[in-house]
């Protein structure tokens, strides 16, 4: 399936993240950026190591939901910019699978909006992770509250 914003195939490259940061240094009204990166852990579960997580999503619904979240966050906080990216497909251990970026004139709106976005993305976007072990067996990821 074709991936649309906010989805990217595989791990989110660090160069992609630094390009987004770089491109916002041209906006002279911005005083602070807050960034969250979710990274795939090599958890050991019953003596087997997680090699990577394969992400799937109900994309149409996720996109619609993210548009709504975006609107609500911009209404609630005095933000200048907001970017969200999430991986689909396989992300190997150590790879970045979630990238949230907010910018504001003073620091607090960016920080509060970023924190709230991370919680809402985990809770409200229909995305699932399948933890793949080194022996090719798997288990479905469950998020902590």
């Amino acid at each position, binding site marked *: 399936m074709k991936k649309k914003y906010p989805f990217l195939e595989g791990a989110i490259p660090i160069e992609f993240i630094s390009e987004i940061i770089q491109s916002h240094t041209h906006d002279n009204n911005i005083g602070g950026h807050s960034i969250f990166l979710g990274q795939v852990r090599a958890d050991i579960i019953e003596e087997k190591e997680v090699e990577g997580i394969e*992400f799937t999503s109900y994309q149409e619904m996720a996109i619609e939901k993210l548009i709504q979240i975006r609107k609500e966050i911009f209404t609630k906080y005095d933000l200048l910019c907001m970017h969200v990216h999430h991986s689909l497909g396989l992300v190997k251990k150590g790879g970045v699978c979630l990238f949230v970026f907010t910018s504001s004139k003073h620091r607090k709106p960016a920080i509060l909006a970023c924190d709230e976005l991370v919680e809402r993305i985990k809770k409200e976007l*229909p995305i699932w992770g399948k933890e793949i072990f080194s022996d090719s067996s798997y288990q479905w990821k469950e998020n902590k509250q």
Partner: protein
Amino acid sequence: MNIKIFGKLTDIFLNEKYQLNKKVSTVLDLKETLENYFPDLKSLNYLIIINNQNAKESDPIPEEAEIALLPPYSGG
């Protein structure tokens, strides 16, 4: 009626979609029918989504609705 299946529910349906050939009128009706065919569903938490919206058991199922079964999310 085509139903989209996601996450760990694909382990029960053994597919990412399921074609239901019985007519169902409400969400409760759909739920009972599916749990009758796939008893393992009963022990799982899942949402029934109609046209991208979370559906209540009493909701009717419109013609040509897009239906999906979603287990708890685990993105990020």
